[in-house]
């Protein structure tokens, strides 16, 4: 089985104090010298794919004939999984792609955009769909639910629509069943369903059921990864004409900071005990404490 996980690094927005946005009056998805991080949902998707690749029924890079058998028979060679990490991003993503190669991804591909695509979901989806329909298409595409900084939440479903593939949402876990078929666990607040499915299909992750922080590579893995290259494509290398990448359907800009209706009163004190005392005396009225 061949699978590809699509991700987009983002700035660590939690590190940007609100006044920084307000002071400049310039609202942009790129707040400047703030570290890049994996989007937590996509980090979960990337780890989920690694865990599937490491399952007892799978091993090593895949060949074309390693796709799931129709018979569902458990006999035969181990099911092999080939994992590709794919992003549409500038060269800041290369560091992350190397991390992914180090932890077990067989291939890392970056499509370099010719402009900022944070708010152009259809262009991103058309780019990915075009790559997918290339010479060595994957059986499974995995996405996080939100997309990059634009958080338009559309990339996975749009790719599914463009390819005519089915799409499952809120994917929490992946595994192969005893018959070597793909078992997808979809979990929401109040429901959980397990689907046994036949690829190709698009999966959009939700909240994982297992610990889903992306694994950290060892020093040896990092050194080995240095000898393997990230494949970089330009938009010109892909023929996007097959899909409607027309983001003329809508236009998006950032217009401000969500308003807070609260004013924070700070409690000061020389020790945690003093501060707790003020909190208890002033704000936790007796009737509020059981």
């Amino acid at each position, binding site marked *: 089985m061949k699978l590809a996980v699509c991700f987009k690094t983002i700035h660590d927005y939690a590190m940007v104090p*609100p006044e920084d946005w307000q002071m400049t009056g310039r609202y942009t998805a790129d707040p400047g010298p703030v570290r890049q991080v994996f989007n937590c949902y996509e980090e979960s998707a990337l780890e989920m794919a690694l865990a599937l690749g490491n399952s007892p029924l799978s091993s090593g890079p895949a060949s074309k004939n390693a796709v799931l058998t129709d018979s569902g028979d458990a006999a035969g060679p181990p099911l092999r999984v080939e994992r590709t990490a794919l992003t549409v991003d500038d060269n800041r993503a290369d560091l992350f792609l190397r991390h992914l190669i180090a932890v077990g991804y067989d291939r890392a591909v970056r499509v370099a955009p010719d402009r900022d695509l944070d708010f152009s979901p259809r262009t991103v989806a058309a780019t990915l769909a075009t790559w997918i329909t290339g010479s060595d298409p994957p059986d499974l595409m995995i996405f996080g639910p939100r997309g990059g900084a634009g958080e338009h939440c559309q990339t996975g479903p749009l790719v599914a629509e463009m390819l005519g593939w089915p799409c499952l949402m809120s994917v929490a876990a992946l595994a192969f069943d005893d018959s070597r078929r793909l078992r997808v666990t979809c979990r929401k607040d109040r429901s959980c369903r397990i689907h046994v499915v036949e690829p190709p299909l698009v999966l959009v992750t939700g909240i994982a059921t297992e610990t889903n922080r992306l694994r950290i590579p060892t020093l040896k893995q990092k050194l080995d990864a240095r000898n393997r290259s990230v494949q970089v494509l330009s938009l010109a290398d892909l023929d996007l004409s097959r899909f409607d990448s027309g983001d003329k359907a809508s236009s*998006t800009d950032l217009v401000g900071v969500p308003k807070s209706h609260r004013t924070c009163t700070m409690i000061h004190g020389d020790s945690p005990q003093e501060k707790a005392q003020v909190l208890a005396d002033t704000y936790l009225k007796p009737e509020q404490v059981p």
Partner: protein
Amino acid sequence: MKALAVLTGDGHEIRSRASDMVPLLSSLAESLSDLELCMIYTGSVPDRFPEWPMALSRVHRIQLPDAGVPDPLLDFISDMAETCPKNLYLFDGTDIGDCLAARLGYRLAGSSCLQVQTCRMTDEKNLTSWRLACGGHLLARTVLEKFPWCLSAAATPGTALGWTGDSGCPVTDHPAAAMPVQSWVISSVSVPVETDSPLTGADRILVLGNGVGSRENLARMNPVAEALGAQIGATRPVVMNGWLPMARLIGVSGTMVAPSLCIVAGASGTGAFCAGIRQAECIVAINTDPDAPVFETADVGIVDDLVPVLLALETLIRKKESS
């Protein structure tokens, strides 16, 4: 303008999701000439309807053969769009609603915007919508220029719509037999999960963020929560670390809460999280970083390590109890 509102989900959830959609439809009320409602279900036919504040011209009850597989529903709605086109398709903000809004917008050569908080007509041809972006720290404005507009409504805390046995309009049933078979699904089973979040309806909540540092520290917070009479909630990093179950997650991807007291300790305050506590009566934030965004959404702030502050608070409460 003709519109179709699509509600997925069952039981209480469908009423909450309906209440998310009402503000968007209300803001477009002057332009709305016709509004139909689709209620999607998988079990028995729903015999009650959300009490919509605006008139409906028809309700469609659509049975989905397999919960969580939206593809046949997409085909069904796009077929409806061919025979009876609408200007606006509004979906609830569930994962299925998002999926349908994005795919239908592309399929019908229209435009889509998901997780919309507010919207209004800017002129006869354009609809402008606002939603959160960049980790919830910024507002994004999207102008949708191509019909039909396909939106999904962001979850908002608040009272779920009431139920009524009278739809007030004709009702059409579409049984699952009308849906195409999905040959790619070999089997599909439902697995029992915890049905009610302990956070739903909680009057006091102690939310722990990544600053709690370890599973051991988190365990030390249980007696604090007990003394406060509070439920423990968590931010996404805490759930991702496996320190607390998903049912404790607060935020747009977890539970939206509205307690009278919400103590947020060790959380930076991402927009996605803060959206989940926005309706709290009083928010107390504790963080070692004085510049943490969480203080922007709090009524009371303490800059300090959460562990000694909360343990001291527990001691004070216990003392009061014993005296």
